[in-house]
């Protein structure tokens, strides 16, 4: 055969390695998708068994406040009311986000607008360090510093939503701050220049222009922080007291979805109602983190439209 024809008809080396590369990346992606789907399937099949196999009413599961899966109430129905844990989880999450956001915005403005040089040299490494501390260390510090402090100031045992909020605040602060910094940095330079040229002061520029433009990015950071707070188990479990009670105030023991999960899973038997009920809580957690992800995407899209 004509060597030129042959070289035209045969796949070149570059094309071959291209296909190989595509195959490898396709394999990686499908593996990840498969793992995610498998996790969803596993948690859902276990978690939904509570409702289909053990015939628990979903409405009662979400609204009742007695959590005692091994016992039955006066009507002979098992006591699986997850409301205290749902309230506890949302309580600590929102309070921690509420507390962390102003600090994060303040730190972000300092690092981008006021003193970028010192900010980068000093605050950046500190924030990175905070991210790297394992959650058990946060929990331990919470247990030996925050809980006694709360007990001293407000009485009671010191365990509760307040202590949980304090620990989570420190844990999510770096996440929210670093995303806020990114959002502020991505505000185009000409916005600031235009504002200053119009005679606005630095404060007016920061407050009315830079922060406005960076709002979607900051919100994304806050939601990411909330997702982390919602899913945090160990540190919260150590300081919140783990009482499946509807929280009446911030200093009595409460519980979160994660804390009940970590406490209970070793004491239940696979396939029993008590175990399935815990899986239902896990499913709830999974759905919530999915919701947080969707929220982030929604905010991102809205922000992009605003530009």
């Amino acid at each position: 055969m004509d060597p030129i024809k042959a070289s035209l008809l045969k796949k070149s080396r570059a094309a071959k390695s291209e296909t190989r590369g595509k195959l490898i990346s396709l394999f990686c992606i499908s593996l990840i998708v498969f793992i995610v789907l498998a996790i969803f399937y596993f948690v859902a099949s276990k978690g939904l068994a509570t409702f289909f196999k053990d015939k628990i009413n979903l409405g009662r599961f979400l609204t009742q406040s007695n959590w005692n899966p091994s016992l039955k109430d006066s009507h002979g129905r098992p006591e699986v009311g997850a409301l205290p844990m749902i309230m506890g989880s949302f309580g600590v999450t929102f309070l921690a986000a509420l507390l962390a956001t102003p600090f994060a915005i303040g730190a972000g403005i300092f690092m981008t607008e006021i003193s970028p040089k010192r900010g980068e040299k000093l605050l950046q490494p500190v924030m990175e360090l905070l991210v790297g501390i394992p959650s058990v260390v946060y929990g331990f510090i919470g247990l030996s510093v925050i809980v006694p402090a709360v007990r001293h100031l407000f009485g009671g045992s010191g365990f509760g939503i307040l202590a949980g909020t304090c620990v989570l605040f420190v844990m999510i602060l770096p996440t929210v701050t670093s995303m806020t910094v990114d959002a502020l940095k991505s505000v185009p330079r000409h916005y600031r220049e235009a504002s200053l040229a119009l005679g606005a002061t630095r404060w007016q520029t920061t407050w009315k222009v830079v922060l406005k433009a960076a709002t979607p990015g900051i919100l994304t950071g806050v939601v990411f922080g909330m997702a982390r707070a919602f899913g945090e188990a160990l540190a919260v479990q150590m300081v919140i007291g783990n009482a499946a009670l509807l929280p009446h105030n911030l200093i009595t023991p409460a519980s979160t979805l994660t804390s009940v999960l970590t406490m209970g899973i070793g004491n239940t038997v696979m396939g029993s109602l008590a175990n399935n009920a815990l899986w239902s809580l896990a499913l709830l957690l999974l759905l919530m983190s999915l919701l947080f992800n969707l929220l982030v995407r929604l905010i991102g899209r809205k922000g992009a439209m605003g530009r």
Partner: protein
Amino acid sequence: MRKRNVISLLVTFSLLLLAGCQSKQNGQSVTAVGSSALQPLIEALAEQYSADHSGQFINVQGGGSGTGLSQIQSGAVQMGNSDLFAEEKAGIKADKLVDHRVAVVGITPVINKQLGIKNLTLTQLAKIFSGEIDNWQDVGGPDQPVVLVNRAQGSGTRTTFEQWVMKSRKTKPAQEQDSTGMVRSIVANTPGAISYLAFSYVDDSIAMVKLNGIAPTDENVMTNAWPIWSYEHVYTKGQPTGLTKRFLAYVLSDEVQHKQVGKMGYIPVAKMTVERSVDGTITKVK
């Protein structure tokens, strides 16, 4: 060609690694999983056994009585440790499991030291944990609210405590902790706190309470004068064989029972003058 060299090198390496794992498994090993109350004893005995018999390993893990029972039921491990009778745990088919009682553990109510209460009646104790008594004044203590600290639902210690103290009463929902050490430090640091611990965990930081005038001592457990105690069970699926059988024989041998078990804060089963069945019936041992 260099790439191929790297790949073949990697393959050789991983094969070598796998081979290494293989040769390490040359000895025998069995796994025991479950009750955290029994874990320290089994761990210490396993270490000793491995030291005496080279190449025979017993891995000991915690995880709770529920884990121990469900793992042994599914056959994933060779020994399942539990504070409870398998019959007491929902979802366990006890007829497939063989019970080996390796020790007895007494459980005592403990209170914060500052309360200064020395004695409670069993009814008072039950009323405290059910929430009917919520101030220490009602039982002769200072004017201070009761702070309940419970173990996790389904834990062996809590189930035993509820079975012998609460009887038909329901425990008031309150703070729960999943480890004994945590319970101890909370009771030690929180004014007005009360909880319950295995004898072996009691130290100077907390105070024990007498019940109906009876002190929580090993001697009183042996005669059942102190009613709050439980067997520590090691369950096997069917009769044990091989290393499991040898290890259990070692654990139950007179030497271990009379020396180590007592030293670790447990009570040897042989010293009990009574025997308790699953449903709680007490019979005298002749």
